[in-house]
Each structure stands twice: as C-alpha cells, then as structure tokens.
C-alpha cells in the first residue's frame, strides 16, 4: 500500500464518513424535491463527493476516486439542471455512496474492489441515455438496496460519533472484502435467493463499537474550568485544614459542593447524544423498504434534538429499526387497499421523540391497518400461550400487548422484511434492559401508536432506600410499585398463609410476601421505634405477635429464651401485638409479570444513586444488581428484584406468571368498567362512617382540640399564617356529634378558592369503590348518599352543600352559576351517565343553576335524545365508562355529524388518566372534569353556555 501517513489517512476516513452520512439524507431530500431542485442541497452533496474524490486521489485510492468521480459527474449535471433527479438516479447514487462507505471503512483493500456494476449505470446516466440506463435498472437496482437495509449496524455513520474506533489502520487485508460479496452477486440473484442473502448479510458486518466520542469543545472547556476550580478549592481546603480555620472550612466546603455538582452535570452532558443520530437512518430504511414492497410511505421525523445517554442511543437502534420495519411491512397497507378504505394512498409514519415527565418518549405512529386484538388473541391461543378463557376477559389493550409475549410471531407469512424470527418480545426485552417501557395503542383500520418511554440516562437511577438487618439497600424505582405499611393491629387480619407462603391482601388481590432477611440469609430483625434500635426477630410467621411476655408463651419460651431474658426485661410493653414496632413495612415491587411484597425493617428516603458494579468475587450473589455509595461514604447494595423472587422460589399462585397477570389485569378491568370512585373514609363520631371524594381533598392535618378557636360564633384555627374556617358534618346533617377526642383530623378542602377544614376523627383510609351509590335512603342536607364499604354503611358528605349552608356569603360573588335569564332562553343540557347516583347529582347541580336537563342512561340513549331534541340541547355532559356506547364513542358519533360538531362536550370522570384525557381530546371532548367537583364543573358549564348565548 502506498498509504504512508496514518494520520492523514485517518483524517480522510473520518471526514469522508462524515460527508457520506450527510449524503444519504441529502440525496433523499433531493429525490423528494424532484425537478424543483434545491441548489444548496445539491451543491452540498456535490462538494462532498468532490472532496472525497480529491482526498482519495491524493492518497492514491484510485477506486474510491473513480467512483466518487462518477457520482460527482451526475451531481454536476443535476446541479446545472441537465438532469432531473428521479428515484432511479437517486437509487444509483445511494448505492454508490453505500459502496463508497464500505470501501472507506475497509480502506486498505479498497483498491482491489470491483466497482464496475456501479460505474456502468452511473456513466450511462451521465452519458445522457439516462432513460435507457434507468429503465432496465429499477428492478435489479432495487435488490441491492435491500442488502443495505438489514445492516442495522451502519448507524448512518452517526455524525458525532464518526471517529473510527481503531486509530491505527491495522492491516485488514487478511479479511479480503467482507462487504463486497453481498453487493456484487446480488443483481444476478432471483428474488428468493436475495432474501436469504439478506439474512446472512445482516449478521456479517458486526457492530464496530464506538469507543470514542465527539464532544463539543465548549463543553470540554467548561470541564477544564471546573477541574481547575476543583484544584483551587482543594488547595484552599488543605490550607484551611492546616490553619484549623473552621469558618473558612465551611465556605470551602460549600464551594467544593457546588463545583462537584456542576462537574457531575457537565460530565453527564458529555454522554448525551441527540437521538437524531439514530433517527437519521430511518428515512432511507423506510424509502428502500416501501419501494421493495411497492408501498408509498411518508416518514416524518420530529424531535431529532432530543438527547439521551450514549449507551441508550446505541442500544435503541435495533429495537427501533425493528419497530419501524414492522410499521412499514405490517402496518401500512398496499396503496390499493388504502384507497378502498378511503385513506390516502400514501401511508404516513411519524417518528417522534419528546420529553415527558423526566423521561424521553419515542413514539412510532402509523396510519395503517392497526393491530387486530382478536386475531392476536386467537393466534396466542392457538400457540398455547394463553387459554381461551383468559382471552375472553382480556381488554383490547391487553390483547394488543400479547404481541410482546415470547414465542409470539404475528406475521401470518414470514416476509423477508420483518418476519425473521425476531419477535417483538426481543424488542421488549431489549427495552427492558434499558429501563424502558413500551406500550401499544392500536385501533383496527386507523393505525397503531407505539410509545417507548426511556430514562434520560442509565448512570443515575432513582431508588428507594430501605434497611434490613442493619444494612441499607436500594431498590430501583422502576421496580417499585408502592410502599405498604400494615399497622400492627391489622397484620393478623391481612397476612395469611397459603401453604408455606405468606401472602397479604392488597385491594382484593393476594400478594406473595418475601422477607428480605430470609432471602439473603441474614438474621431477621425489626426496628423498634420506641427504643430506636434494631432487635432480633424471633417470630416464626409474620402473623405471630411480637413480644413474649404474654403468660401463655412465657413458659414454653423460657427454656430457649434464657439469653434474651435481659432483653425481655428491658421491654416495657406487655403485649407487643399492637405495638407500633410490630407493623410490617412492605415494598411492593414488580418485575416483568411478577409482583410481590418485600418485607423490610425500615423504609427510608428515595434517592438518586449512581450504580457501580460489584467485583467478580461477588458475581455469584444473584440478589444484587450492583452497589452504590451513599452520602455518608458507606456502600449500599442495590437489590435485583427479579432474582430475589427467583431465589425465594416465588411462583405466582395459579399457573403461569402471565396467566396470573392477565387474570389480575382482567379483574382490574372488570372494576374499571364500572365507575371507580376514590373515597376518603373518616368518622365524625365513633360509630358512623363517612366518605368524601378523595379528589376534592386538598390535604389532611393532624391537630389537637386545643388548637381550635371559637371566634364570633365560628370555629377557626390558624393554618398557614391565616385562619382556616372549620366545619363538622353534624353542623348541617343530623348525625352524631363529633367525638370528644383530643386528637382530631382536619380534612382541608378548597371551596370558592378558599380553604375550609372539615373536622373528623380517624381511622381514615383511602379506598376505591365501584358499587352503586344509593342517593335516596340516607339523603339529607349535607349528605349526598350512602354506600356499603366492607359491611359498613358509609355516608357520602356533600362538603359543598355544607359550606353553602354555613357560609352563604362565600357564594355571593359566585352568581355566575345562575343562568342569565335576560335572553329568555333556558339552555338545555344533555347528561349521559349510567350511574343513577351520579346522574342525579349532576342533574341537581344543573337544575339548581337554572338549566334544563335531559338525561340518558347510556351513550346510545343520549345519542337518540340528542337527535330528538337537537334544537334545544346546547351542551352535552357525558360520563366515560358506560354500557352500550361509552363517552368516547358518543363523542365520536356526535362529532361525525356536521349538525352537532360545534356542540360543547364535557366529560366527567372519576379517575382521569392522562392517556384517557389525550384520547378524549382526540375524539373531540372539550373539557374533562372530575365527578362531584361541583364548583369547577359548573364554572366550566357556565363559561361554555355564555359563549353560546
């Protein structure tokens, strides 16, 4: 080889790869523009080809020079408008640039490459017989492009990471030309052969891992500055220590604190890469693939600038490619089919990245045929992955998500595009590894939205810190479902034994329990709050009470309890069953399909921690995912939740994990189909139980009776540097008076933008109810209805009504609720709601304010009513979950009819999930309101009515 100067060669390679990365996107843009040439763009590509040619000539890389020269010629002709770029020409150019890239990556053997198959079409185009040259081309020309596509490897030599991995060009010659074979024989191959070829090429050129990283100089500069600062501060610190100057030490400490956090941030930034690096290759993938499949697809990319950690960027490439290919292959229909369905012939795929709630969301949305949940379920049943019974109780969403089950390949026929035996489960596994979540929302006929949620970085993760046996452990927040504390007096009731396993009842489900101390084989301990110390736990089962001074156990424990005697004496409480220390602290964790409770001694804060690997001597300890250094310099181990479950030999209670999960989800769903209402349960007197809608509660305060002041005939207390008016249920409703306790609770509400406190006593609890509320039997002023909860009749308090009765002046300026009667028209509102209670409640709000109300017990009835009373009805207020036709469907039906598409639609929900809100907005719901939040609802209703009249 005549290449002598390594550095210059290296420079040439880097520069050329960078040019080529851009060429691809630019060529695609040129193709799109067609005759309407963007000169700047063509110029750019032209210059890129030109400089590669120049460099190659200088290095003596004749073959590269020749090829780039031929490309440059054509580009020159396009630039001078002698040639109109069409897909065929661009194809040839794209293949040329692929070949160039291959040769540059393999520079030592580039001069031995045979490029005639590229030169012939290139020259043919250049010589002006473009038509002939292009005409025979398209078919064979397409196949080679297929070769290119499967290389998820060539990450469109990502602009900022183009620095080649090996700085010194080692003689690569022994491997003759790994890239050449797929390209050269391809045109001769028959289609099926080409397909098989594809599989092999996909595996051959394996990832050239990027070991170096391009960082902006300004970022490096700031790192340097910070490092300098750090050194200065260190010197100061040493000096301060030397001079024993405490006051200065504080200042220096602060300074170091600032610098380190800034330094950390800056270093993290160096790892952040724009996701555009990955996205940039997809236009080509979609283009080539859609051509091959004879589909027309437009890919829109949004959010190229969103930045993610380098490791995530690298690993997201394959799953994304798979998903995009799936969309192109299975999602978007053939143009003819689309036309039949009344869609545009051109399919649309939108690839979008954006930030949401501290995470990055990547969304792939297509307007294709969508996923047919029924078909998926049928397929899963036939493959034995789920049973027919399970399928029956699955929601559509569940069915769609079946696609992620291992062993589930949904392609009816294996195409060479996406059905390569790599199922979606691999995609999911890969994303799981990154701490990402994937979710599919699909509607048959209308398309699919796949959302991937990714953490910004893998290096720092939020964790829950817990203590067991005196050591701290961290549980990644990703695995954390909830924290559960079972008070001592409920342990016996809620913890049960099933065989040898202990389980806890959690909202109607059985949750298996694992004692962390048992799994990792340390001594069982518990945390004694009164003595603020760790104690050895000797109970056999959790439900046993703690402490053994009860006479029954005293005798038979004495023999082995000798050495603990002194400890026993120290304990003052006679029966610990109800001592606070007997409470169970449970961390509910989930891993894949498994969910269980981990019993720990103490729950501590949640912290952002940096994961560090454990040494190889500890690799055999499967229970840990790593370690981290806590604020005090000590180490805490990070628990691996799924391995802990395995170590505890935890299996789900019935059958496969998945079946269990499905059953749970189904049960959940059954409940969801009724209206869920979250209630806060409390008491006023010892014997009567009350509830208020939880979403109305602002906060709950514990107070002493002595804090209540009687002023001007009203009860108030000082609260956040103001006075908080206090009310009780018995002020208005004829119920038993407030119990004479010293410790009271104040449930704070916000009514008429003023805080108001409802006095109550415990025990309080937050629960979700689904049963029908009885709005008749116990209704009275201040009480809107009743419901049975755990065999207790519970009265639902109408706080609004109580306040209105006690403080009518608060509502003086709220006359907006009254209908403006001057216009002479009384607006009519259509209410669609299946629950009698809620319907009556909302109706009473409306009639109170002077509106006329027409009510329908479900969406279908409401729709009929709307058509019947089309002229009167000026607004629709609808529930979401209803039989026959739900709120979404009702809205859609209304919006489809041009007669009604202007009518305001307000949806009422009990639990407004963001996803539902988004869905609601998409179908045309104007506003979302929480049921029973009278004030907000009415303000909103009035606003809309005002606009109409």
């Amino acid at each position, binding site marked *: 080889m005549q290449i002598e100067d390594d550095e210059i060669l290296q420079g040439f390679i880097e520069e050329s790869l960078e040019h080529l990365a851009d060429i691809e996107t630019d060529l695609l843009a040129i193709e799109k523009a067609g005759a309407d040439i963007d000169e700047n763009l063509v110029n750019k590509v032209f210059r890129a080809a030109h400089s590669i040619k120049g460099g190659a000539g200088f290095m003596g890389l004749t073959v590269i020079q020749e090829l780039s020269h031929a490309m440059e010629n054509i580009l020159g002709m396009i630039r001078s408008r002698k040639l109109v770029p069409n897909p065929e020409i661009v194809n040839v150019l794209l293949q040329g640039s692929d070949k160039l890239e291959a040769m540059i990556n393999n520079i030592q053997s580039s001069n031995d490459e045979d490029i005639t198959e590229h030169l012939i079409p290139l020259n043919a185009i250049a010589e002006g017989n473009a038509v002939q040259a292009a005409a025979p081309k398209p078919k064979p020309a397409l196949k080679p492009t297929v070769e290119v596509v499967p290389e998820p490897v060539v990450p469109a030599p990502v602009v900022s990471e183009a620095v080649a991995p090996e700085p010194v060009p080692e003689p690569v010659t022994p491997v003759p030309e790994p890239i050449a074979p797929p390209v050269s024989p391809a045109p001769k191959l028959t289609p099926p052969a080409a397909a098989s070829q594809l599989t092999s090429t996909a595996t051959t050129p394996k990832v050239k891992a990027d070991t170096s990283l391009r960082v902006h100089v300004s970022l490096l500069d700031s790192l340097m500055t910070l490092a300098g600062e750090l050194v200065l501060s260190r010197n100061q610190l040493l000096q301060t220590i030397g001079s024993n100057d405490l006051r200065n030490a504080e200042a220096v400490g602060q300074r170091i604190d600032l610098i380190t956090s800034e330094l950390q941030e800056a270093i993290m930034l160096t790892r952040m890469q724009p996701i555009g690096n990955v996205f940039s290759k997809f236009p080509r993938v979609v283009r080539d693939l859609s051509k091959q499949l004879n589909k027309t697809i437009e890919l829109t990319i949004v959010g190229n600038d969103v930045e993610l950690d380098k490791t995530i960027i690298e690993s997201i490439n394959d799953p994304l490619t798979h998903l995009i290919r799936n969309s192109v292959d299975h999602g978007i229909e053939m143009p003819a089919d689309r036309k039949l369905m009344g869609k545009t012939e051109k399919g649309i795929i939108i690839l979008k990245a954006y930030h949401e709630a501290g995470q990055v969301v990547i969304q792939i949305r297509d307007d294709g045929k969508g996923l047919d949940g029924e078909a998926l379920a049928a397929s899963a049943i036939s493959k034995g992955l789920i049973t027919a019974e399970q399928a029956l109780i699955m929601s559509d969403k569940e069915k769609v998500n079946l696609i992620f089950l291992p062993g589930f390949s949904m392609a009816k026929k294996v195409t060479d595009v996406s059905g390569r035996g790599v199922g979606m489960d691999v995609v999911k596994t890969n994303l799981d590894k990154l701490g990402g979540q994937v979710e599919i929302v699909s509607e048959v006929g209308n398309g699919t939205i796949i959302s991937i949620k990714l953490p910004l970085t893998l290096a720092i993760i939020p964790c829950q810190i817990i203590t067991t*046996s005196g*050591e701290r452990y961290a549980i990644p927040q990703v695995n954390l479902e909830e924290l559960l504390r079972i008070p001592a007096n409920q342990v016996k009731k809620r913890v049960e034994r099933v065989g040898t396993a202990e389980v806890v009842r959690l909202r109607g489900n059985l949750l298996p329990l694992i004692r962390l101390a048992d799994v*990792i*084989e*340390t001594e069982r301990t518990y945390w004694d709050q009164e003595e603020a110390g760790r104690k050895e736990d000797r109970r056999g089962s959790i439900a046993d009470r703690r402490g053994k001074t009860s006479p029954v156990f005293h005798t038979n424990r004495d023999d082995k309890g000798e050495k603990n005697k002194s400890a026993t004496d120290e304990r003052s409480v006679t029966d610990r069953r109800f001592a606070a220390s007997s409470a169970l602290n449970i961390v509910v964790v989930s891993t894949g399909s498994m969910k269980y409770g981990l019993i720990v001694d103490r729950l501590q804060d949640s912290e952002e921690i940096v994961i*560090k*690997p*454990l*040494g*190889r*001597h*500890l*690799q*055999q*300890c499967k*229970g*840990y995912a790593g*370690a981290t*250094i806590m604020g005090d*310099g*000590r*180490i*805490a*181990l990070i628990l691996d939740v799924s391995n802990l479950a395995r170590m505890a030999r935890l299996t789900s209670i019935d059958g496969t994990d998945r079946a269990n999960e499905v059953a749970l989800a189904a049960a959940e769903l059954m409940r969801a189909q009724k209206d869920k209402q979250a209630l806060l349960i409390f008491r006023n007197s010892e014997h009567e139980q009350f509830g208020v809608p939880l979403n109305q509660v602002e906060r709950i305060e514990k107070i002493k009776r002595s804090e209540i002041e009687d002023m001007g005939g009203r009860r108030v207390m000082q609260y956040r540097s103001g006075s908080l008016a206090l009310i009780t249920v018995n002020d208005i409703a004829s119920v038993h008076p407030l119990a004479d306790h010293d410790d009271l609770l104040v449930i704070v509400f916000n009514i008429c933008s003023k805080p108001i406190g409802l006095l109550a006593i415990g025990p309080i609890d937050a629960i979700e109810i689904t049963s029908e509320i009885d709005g008749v039997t116990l209704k009275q002023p201040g009480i809107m209805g009743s419901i049975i909860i755990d065999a207790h009749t519970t009265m639902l308090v109408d706080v609004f009504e109580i306040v209105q009765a006690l403080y009518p002046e608060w509502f003086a300026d709220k006359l907006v609720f009254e209908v403006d009667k001057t216009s002479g028209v009384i607006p009519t509102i259509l209410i669609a709601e299946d629950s009698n209670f809620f319907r009556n409640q909302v109706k009473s709000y409306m009639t109170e304010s002077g509106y006329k109300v027409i009510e329908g017990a479900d969406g279908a009835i409401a729709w009929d009513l709307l058509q019947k009373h089309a002229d009167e009805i000026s607004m629709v207020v609808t529930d979401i979950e209803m039989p026959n036709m739900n709120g979404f469907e009702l809205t859609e039906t209304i919006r489809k009819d041009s007669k009604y598409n202007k009518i305001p639609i307000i949806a009422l929900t009990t639990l407004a999930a963001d996803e539902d809100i988004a869905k609601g907005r998409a179908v045309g719901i104007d506003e979302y309101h929480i049921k029973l939040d009278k004030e907000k609802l009415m303000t909103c209703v009035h606003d809309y009515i005002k606009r109409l009249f």
Partner: protein
Amino acid sequence: MNESKGTTNKSLVELATFFVGDALCGMDILKIQEINKLMDMTKVPQAPSYVTGILNLRGQIVTIIDLGKKLGLGSTDTTLSSRNIIVSSPGEHVGLLVTRFSDVISADTAKIERAPANMGGIQGEFFSGVYKTDDKLIGILDVNKVLRIEEQGH
C-alpha cells in the same frame, strides 16, 4: 524476574511482608496499589465466606477478601493493627485483609525457593515460593491464585 540465573548481578525484589494470623507472608511491593486501614465495610449477605465486605475506596467499590479465611487460617479480626492491602485485579481493585503489616525487605530473587506443599497450615498452592531471612521464613503469596474464583463457589 524470577528466572534469575544467580549470576554476579543479583536481581532484587522488594517484598512487602505482613502477618496473616501468625504466618508471615510477603508479596512483590510493586503489585500493591495501596495499604489502608479503612474498616468501615458493608457486609454482603450470601457472599463467599472469605469476602469480608465491600469498601468505598474513593468512589470505587472494592471487595475485601479475608486473607486468613482464604488461606484456611481462620477469620481475621479487624483490630487497630489490621490493614487492607489493595491490589489490582483485572477490571477492579481487591483488598486483602491482613492481621498486621510488617516490613518491606529486599530479597534476592535467586534465594527464593520453591514452596513446600504445605506451609504453616496453608495450602502450598497459594505460594509462589519461600524466602528465608536470617530469622524468618516468608511465604511469598501468588496473588493471582489468591484472587482466583473457585469454580465450586464457597
């Protein structure tokens, strides 16, 4: 360096010597990263019995191996005189907990003899040789053997 032919130019090796229980051991000082007395370790439940715990060494997690246990001499108590000898192992640092640190001596490589099959109750496999001074016998540890992970676990 251990292949010295015992010619006129003696090749010397600096041996760091320390006590594991009552046994005097030594190792090439160049293999030692540092010696510290940080004893605030975090126990790792279910770790091999010879692992005392893990230690935060300026942001690095270091596994501490109880050399006494590893060599079959019983566990090493952490006292005021106990020390961690930090050595580097592929990809990480590992600490060896020893009872007490002794001197650094210069040893003539030519005089290092082959280790006997058993020495002071320690399996000979952990030694690469023995060195005799006027009054002492120093077993020279084969650090790689000590750090090797047994297939059978603990």
